C-alpha cells in the first residue's frame, strides 16, 4: 500500500491511497484503502490521512474519520489523535498499522507499529526519507 497527504499553498488538504491488498488475499476482498473515512480522509478543518496495514481493522475503527473527530470534537493534536489509534486501539487488536497525516497547520506525523514503514516528507529544502528508525 502507498499513500500521500498534502497541504497546498492555499491551505487546502488532500489524501490519496493505492494498494494491491495483501498476498494470497481471497478473490474479491477489499481493504480500507478505497473506503473513505477508513484508509483515506481529508477535511480542511482538521487533517488529511492515508493508512497502511490490516485493512479490516482500519474499516472497523473508521481510522481516518476517527483521527479527524478526535481533533475536531476533542481538540486533540494530530500527533496524539493518530498516535493514539496506531499505538492504542490498532496495536491492541494485533493489527500491523501505519499512516501518514498532515494537519491544517502543516504538522506531519508518520506513526507505525510494525518493524518499519517506507515513509517521507518534504517541505521547502527539507526532505526526509526513512524505512526503519532512520
Amino acid at each position, binding site marked *: 500500500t502507498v499513500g500521500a497527504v498534502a*497541504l497546498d499553498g*492555499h491551505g487546502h488538504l488532500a*489524501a*490519496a491511497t493505492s494498494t*494491491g491488498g495483501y498476498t*494470497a488475499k481471497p478473490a474479491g476482498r477489499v481493504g480500507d484503502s478505497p473506503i473513505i473515512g477508513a484508509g483515506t480522509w481529508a477535511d480542511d478543518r482538521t487533517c488529511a490521512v492515508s493508512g497502511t*496495514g490490516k485493512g479490516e481493522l482500519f474499516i472497523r475503527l473508521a481510522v481516518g474519520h476517527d483521527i479527524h473527530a478526535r481533533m475536531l470534537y476533542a481538540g486533540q493534536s494530530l500527533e496524539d489523535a493518530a498516535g493514539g489509534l496506531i499505538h492504542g486501539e490498532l496495536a491492541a487488536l494485533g493489527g500491523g498499522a501505519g499512516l501518514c497525516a498532515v494537519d491544517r497547520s502543516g504538522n506531519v506525523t508518520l506513526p*507505525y507499529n510494525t518493524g518499519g514503514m517506507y515513509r517521507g516528507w518534504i517541505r521547502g529544502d527539507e526532505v526526509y526519507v526513512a524505512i*526503519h528508525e532512520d
Partner: protein
Amino acid sequence: MTRPVLAIHGGCGAIPRADLTPEVNHAARSALRRALQAGYALLISGASAADAVAEAVQIMEDDPVFNAGHGAALNRDGVHELDASLMDGESGRAGAVAGARRIRNPVRVARALAEAGDPLLLIGSAADAWAASHGFDTVDNAHFTTPARVAALHTMLERERLGTAQGATEQEKHG
C-alpha cells in the same frame, strides 16, 4: 499563502532491517524521494493538494518496490485486484475504485471520480470500464506482476498448507 508540505508512506510491511539489501534500500529510498519531489514540484507551482497527492501516489504505483500498481500483491488466485481512493479536504469530494484489474494508475481514476462526484466508488470490471471510457490507460493484469510477488504468493500458500500463515511477516503479507 500557506507553506506547502507533502508526506507519503510506501507501506508498513517494510523488509526487516536484517534482510534489507543495499539494492532494495537504495531502490526504496530513491523511489520515495522521486514521489516527494514530483508532488512537491506541483505544490510550489501553485497546484492543489489533490494534484500533489495524485502525482506522488502515481509515482509509487509505477515503482515495483511498492505494493500498488506495478508490483502489487497477488490474490490467492494469482490475480491483481487494485484498490485506491482520493479525498479533497476543501470540497469534501472523494473518489475510489476497488477490485480493479486493468487500470494502470488507479489513483488517477479515483481522482477523476472525485471530480465527477457521483458515482463515488466503482468496483471490478465496472471500474475498469469506466476508466477506459474516460480515457485512462488500461493494461493486462500481468502488467502489475513482478517475480517478487509471485514468489511471495507461493510462500504464503505454502505457509497456509503447512499451517504457519499466522507467522508470516508484514513483509511477506504486504511486501
